[in-house]
């Protein structure tokens, strides 16, 4: 049996879904779009199971956003794989009027529905009193009282679902006489269940993707023939439905709520949306989130890192030699480690975001920031993802799902990777220390610190300006608007927070993980294999050099690794790249580092250590002194001049050197188009900015 959860946003649908399914749930996308599809199994009683689907929150069947279109499609198409046998309409008991609009449409579609009055605890607190029996009789459908947060009423809901639910006999919207012939024609032609279904076909013919071209043209011809104009009746329909709802509520509400219970919430709002305190508190919270991702994620990330390194070493020593075992120990295992390393950051960011959403504070963030963000083509909801990009772009991009408007969301996704993430820090640290003197300005400000801050600022400016450019370039049919409910403040429901963390982590590991693993294996092959002759010659060449006293015997291992990398496919590509990157002040060695760090930026440091045969990547001082000693054969001076260093810093600030980000953008935009454009844009931006910087400073 299929059961769908429907209702308006903020009606507590997700809490109810979590109560019904527990952790027994799957998150995916609806086919062809990036709209969350949450499904789960619920054991109704000893022998009945229900497959529950949590539909996006909507007010009515007339869609404006992508999310809303999905719901309209499902309810208007009985052949749809998600068409439910029964619907749970979740209503916010403190706000019944606008919760019931969708219900009246479901009744007219003749779909068996249970009405759940959720948040009964708050309704009671507000002083509202409802005659539930009369409610159920008037609507001719079961009505169940639930507190989805505490779980009260869930058992009786399950019992109701397990029984038979007849279609309500109510007919709420009488279709206008002048269009009845058209509606009856369509109903007969498509053999539909209800007049309202036929009416929806006529109204929404352009949105309903399940209709074939022939079917659509039949509907359009019928509309023309009978003089049916789309949209003409929609306003009147809504008003008639609300009249029905108001009549109903005046009969079943015994005592109205007073606004007293909201007073506490208003008092909090006085502070949290205050022109000084509001922003101060908001930026403190942002800072806290940012710090936590940085600080708390470090220990588990180090743990994952070392565990996988140890595992790889252990297996390397136990397995026999051979390319197949190398693939496992050096390609696949580090690849999986490279995916799991992001889990702590994802978990921490989504814990915060879930709390912000649950308490109702997120709506206030939008309220505070909307005007500023709108100037840059984004929405108030873009702030949290954007700032989180300073820690890691991956959870940040996953967090853009809360942005309803597709264009706002796309721009936020597109510019977030320009924010300097924590993986850039090791690269910055090495290069800044190399080229910026460790002196103090006015004996107070450290030059290296100023340079580092400058890089963060540079990334931020690039993000903001790119957003501004995209605002003009990206065309959107949908008018941008903000009409959003301001929920009253509540304590977060911790089990909802937990479920969010688990489902976001699972999504990343299993969906983006596939792409990341594939690319990391390709990169590993490129860096480990090369033309057989030269790769095999590594040991003998180095041994000869040691014999002739050109090299120290103590460095043998490191020298062989450097030789192998130089002659691997990555090395060959790096050398081929040299003419293109020479104007930026780079040689082929840096070219190799650019290629390998496509997997992840921080790999730059490791590759540089290998290629300069330093060996130990932990010891930054060694790497720095080795880099400082490197001579540019053309000039006879040092390789890493100020110009080359600055050019590299700018390159790493702008370049999309992170396949995990590309993988998650692919998932969030549902295709390769946007990640590829992002890669092209950021690479071009990095290349030309680095070019200018090098040419100016050299």
């Amino acid at each position, binding site marked *: 049996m299929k059961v769908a959860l429907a209702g308006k946003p903020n009606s507590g649908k997700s809490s109810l879904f979590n109560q019904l399914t527990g952790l027994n749930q799957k998150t995916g996308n609806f086919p062809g779009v990036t709209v969350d599809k949450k499904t789960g199994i619920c054991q109704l009683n000893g022998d009945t199971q229900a497959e529950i689907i949590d539909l996006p929150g909507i007010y009515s069947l007339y869609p404006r956003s992508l999310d809303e279109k999905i719901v309209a499609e499902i309810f208007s198409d009985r052949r749809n794989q998600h068409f439910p046998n029964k619907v749970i309409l979740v209503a916010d008991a403190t706000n019944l009027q*606008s919760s019931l*609009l969708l219900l009246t449409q479901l009744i007219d579609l003749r779909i068996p529905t249970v009405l759940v009055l959720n948040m009964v605890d708050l309704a009671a607190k507000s002083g509202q009193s409802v005659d539930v029996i009369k409610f159920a009789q008037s609507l001719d459908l079961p009505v169940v009282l639930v507190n989805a947060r505490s779980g009260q009423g869930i058992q009786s809901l399950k019992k109701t679902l397990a029984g038979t639910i007849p279609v309500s006999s109510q007919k709420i919207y009488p279709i206008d006489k002048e269009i009845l012939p058209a509606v009856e024609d369509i109903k007969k032609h498509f053999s539909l269940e209800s007049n309202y279904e036929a009416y929806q076909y006529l109204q929404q013919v352009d949105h309903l993707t399940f209709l074939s071209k022939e079917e659509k043209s039949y509907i359009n011809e019928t509309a023309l023939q009978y003089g049916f104009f789309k949209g003409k009746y929609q306003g009147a329909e809504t008003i008639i439905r609300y009249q029905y709802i108001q009549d109903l509520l005046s009969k079943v509400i015994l005592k109205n709520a007073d606004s007293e219970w909201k007073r506490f919430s208003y008092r909090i709002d006085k502070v949290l*949306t205050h*022109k000084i305190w509001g922003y101060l508190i908001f930026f403190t919270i942002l800072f806290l989130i940012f710090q936590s991702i940085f600080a708390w994620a470090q220990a588990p990330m180090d743990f994952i890192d070392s565990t996988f390194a140890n595992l790889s070493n252990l297996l390397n020593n136990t397995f026999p030699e051979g390319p197949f075992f190398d693939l496992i120990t050096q390609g696949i295992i580090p690849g999986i480690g490279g995916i799991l390393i992001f889990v702590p950051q994802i978990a921490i960011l989504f814990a915060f975001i879930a709390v912000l959403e649950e308490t109702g504070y997120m*709506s206030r963030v939008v309220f505070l920031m909307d005007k500023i963000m709108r100037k840059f083509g984004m929405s108030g909801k873009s702030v949290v993802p954007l700032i989180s990009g300073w820690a890691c772009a991956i959870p940040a991009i996953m967090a853009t799902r809360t942005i309803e408007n597709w264009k706002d969301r796309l721009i936020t996704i597109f510019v977030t990777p320009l924010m300097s993430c924590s993986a850039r820090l090791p690269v910055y640290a090495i290069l800044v220390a190399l080229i910026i003197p460790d002196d103090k300005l006015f004996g107070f400000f450290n030059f290296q610190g100023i340079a580092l801050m400058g890089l963060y600022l540079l990334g931020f400016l690039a993000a903001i300006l790119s957003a501004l450019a995209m605002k003009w370039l990206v065309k959107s049919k949908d*008018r941008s608007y*903000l009409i959003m409910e301001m929920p*009253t403040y509540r304590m977060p429901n911790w089990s909802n927070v937990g479920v969010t963390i688990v489902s976001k982590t699972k999504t990343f590991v299993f969906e983006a993980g596939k792409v990341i693993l594939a690319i990391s294996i390709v990169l590993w092959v490129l860096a480990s294999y090369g033309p057989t002759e030269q790769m095999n010659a590594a040991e003998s060449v180095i041994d000869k050099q040691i014999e002739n006293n050109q090299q120290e015997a103590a460095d043998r291992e490191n020298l062989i690794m450097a030789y192998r990398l130089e002659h691997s496919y990555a090395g060959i590509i790096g050398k081929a790249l040299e003419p293109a990157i020479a104007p930026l002040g780079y040689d082929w060695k840096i070219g190799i580092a650019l290629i390998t760090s496509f997997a992840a930026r921080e790999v730059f440091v490791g590759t540089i250590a290998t290629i300069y045969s330093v060996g130990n990547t932990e010891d930054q001082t060694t790497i720095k002194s080795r880099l400082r000693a490197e001579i540019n054969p053309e000039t006879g001076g040092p390789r890493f001049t100020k110009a080359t260093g600055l050019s590299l810093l700018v390159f790493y600030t702008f370049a999309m050197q992170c396949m995990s980000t590309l993988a998650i953008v692919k998932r969030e935009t549902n295709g390769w188009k946007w990640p590829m454009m992002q890669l092209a844009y950021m690479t071009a931006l990095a290349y030309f900015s680095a070019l200018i910087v090098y040419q100016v400073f050299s």
Partner: protein
Amino acid sequence: MADLAKSVAQMIPGETAVIAGFTNEELSNKLLEMGLLPGSVVTYNFKAPLGDPICVTVSGYDLTLRLDEAAMISILN
């Protein structure tokens, strides 16, 4: 009469009015669906520190609107 028509965007905090209608066809359906019905009471609560958006109460719940949207809701008071 046209110059006397007032919209929600011109209200001041604490003011209460009755919704008369909408001046934008496209958005009126959305506003209707959210319970902003002609004849119902709207109360202006407060505005964002930067002046936009605003928070109003209508049919028992709080709603955030941008001034652009608020300007499309004409009122009587």
